[in-house]
């Protein structure tokens, strides 16, 4: 019962937030997208043990797909990108066109990212441990470099996402609610997955892949499926992020391995790897810290973020939830024998 009230309270806060803090709508929309990034990263990285630096590929693919569909339904993408944003006055969209573009573009973004994940995943997911991590790092940068050289999608000068028509109300509020719905949906799907056999299977792969395979699990198929699921959500999130940023730079925004790519890992580590709520908490804390750095340490914000990565990874790898679980195990449903706990504390003191 108290759990239901908790969920209802979170939903209520989520719905009311743009009216409570109207100045921070785009930051809060970004926060919901970060929660999607962190939850989907943790599905593969935390629960399945495949640490990927390359999930930005799906964000980028979703972002470009959505923007190209939004434009391509009504105009020629070549002409649009040749105008380099200067054509914004020529290539206008009315409310119906804009909504139609989004309604087609976002699902297609998910499908495109899913297909890319299926293809890349079946090639790459046979690798383990740090080889997988570095290979996905390479994938992310390679995708960015290809987008950087591809003229049809604007090459290095990027692509301007269609501006929202004025009939739609406030743009950032519109995208806030889309991002909010996506985050809630992701959370529901992910937490449902963890309660199924599939969740047990990916945990088995994390704990010992060889044994899981020996027990008859089709490990490769499960790994690819998990990556595709996370890519579906990341594709939509990428489409939304592109519309929120309004400008797609191939290296700084779409395939930003050194920002979004690392940030999503950091959010999960900060919150607690391999837990359901860890990524959510990590994303919230991270977004607060990031906005704090951007406001008070202007010019040094990226230096501060780099320092934060090192500090968190080196000194706080168990994350907030991991720390709390160690500190208050009863709250997490672990039975603690008081005598044993005293003994352990005594051991630690020695």
């Amino acid at each position, binding site marked *: 019962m108290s759990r239901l009230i908790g969920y209802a309270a979170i939903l209520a806060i989520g719905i009311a937030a743009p009216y409570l803090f109207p100045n921070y709508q785009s930051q809060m929309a970004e926060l919901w997208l970060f929660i999607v990034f962190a939850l989907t990263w943790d599905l593969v990285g935390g629960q399945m043990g495949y*640490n990927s*630096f390359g999930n930005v590929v799906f964000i980028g693919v979703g972002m470009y797909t959505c923007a190209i569909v939004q434009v391509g339904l009504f105009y020629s993408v070549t002409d649009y990108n040749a105008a380099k944003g200067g054509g914004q006055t020529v290539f206008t969209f009315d409310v119906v066109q804009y909504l139609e573009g989004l309604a087609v573009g976002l699902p297609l973004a998910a499908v495109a990212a899913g297909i890319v994940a299926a293809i890349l995943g079946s*090639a*790459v997911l*046979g*690798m*383990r*441990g*740090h*080889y997988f*991590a*570095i*290979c996905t*790092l*390479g*994938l992310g*940068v*390679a995708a960015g*470099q*290809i987008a*950087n*050289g591809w003229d049809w999608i604007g*090459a*290095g000068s990027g692509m301007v996402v269609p501006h929202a028509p004025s009939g739609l109300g406030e743009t950032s509020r519109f995208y806030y609610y889309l991002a909010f719905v996506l985050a809630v949906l992701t959370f529901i799907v992910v937490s449902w997955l963890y309660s199924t056999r599939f969740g047990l299977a990916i945990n088995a792969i994390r704990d010992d892949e060889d044994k899981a395979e020996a027990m008859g699990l089709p490990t490769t198929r499960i790994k690819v499926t998990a990556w595709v699921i996370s890519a579906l959500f990341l594709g939509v999130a990428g489409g939304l992020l592109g519309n929120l940023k309004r400008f797609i730079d191939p290296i700084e925004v779409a395939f930003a391995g*050194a920002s979004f790519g*690392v940030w999503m*890992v950091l959010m999960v*580590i900060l919150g607690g790897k391999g837990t359901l709520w860890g990524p959510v908490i990590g994303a919230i804390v991270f977004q607060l810290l990031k906005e704090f750095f951007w406001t008070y340490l202007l*010019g*040094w914000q*990226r*230096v501060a*973020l*780099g*320092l*934060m*990565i*090192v500090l968190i*990874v*080196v*000194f706080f*790898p168990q994350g907030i939830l991991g720390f709390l679980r160690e500190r208050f195990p009863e709250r997490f449903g672990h039975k603690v024998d008081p005598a044993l706990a005293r003994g352990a504390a005594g051991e630690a003191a020695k």
Partner: protein
Amino acid sequence: MILIQAPVITVDLVLNGLLLGAIFALAAYGMALVWGVMSIINIAQGEFVMLGGYVAVMMYWGGIHPLLAVPVAALVMFIVGWALYRAVIFRIVDRDLFVSLLATFGLSILLQQLMNTAFSGNVQIAEAGLGTMFLFDGLVTLSQIKVVAFVLAIVVGGCMVVFLKRSRMGQAIRATAQNARAARVMGIDTDRVYAVTYGLNAALCGSCGALVAMAYSIHPYIGLPYTIRSFMIVVVAGLGNFAGVIVAGLGLGAAENLAGFILGAQYQLAFVFGLLVVVLVWRNWRLAAKRQYLK
């Protein structure tokens, strides 16, 4: 194909690629050293190259001939590497590989952002003031500094090999690489060995960076490609295979230059990173046939 019709262009590209490849091999040798001894894959490798390059650029600004920067950069970077080991790396030596991967990734972002804030994102060159060589009746041009850099890279690498083979510290490093526990039992201070290894790696990268700054150019974001190239070379050559590292490095340099010509310069980096993926997938696929995987 223009490459077949005009073999001189191919010769030009391959020669320039080979000269570049020696520099890659030098950085890769450092990565193999740290990987083999400490089991850490140092993502900050390319950032050490970049820092060494900035040492050369600063000496050039100060009016000192940048060739002198090669030993100076090595010395400065040895200290930087030592300090980084004492501050951060020693905490992650025995930890999960992903932790060290992420921590060195964080270090690399920190270093590149620091340099970006300090020196702006502009491309910098340390002009060595050497001329150009012409081969084959002037059809193939090689700038002399690239040749000098090639030779120096080989010399630095050779010094490193001799150091590892002959000196007491080198023996201690190789002993630790074979079995750290046994080395500790035999009275080797492995913590100090790790510090020296990490410092030596940084020094190798630093001299490599000084060569890059003279023969090519540097900016704060060149790091990651160098890291990836080093990693690729080590994966192809195998740990502790010095000859393999040289061959793979030279081959990568030539392949990259040819690919940059065929695909267009804007896709050269995409080729490097794509090649990494292909190399890893291919090696893993070969191993999977034997029910094994890359370890």
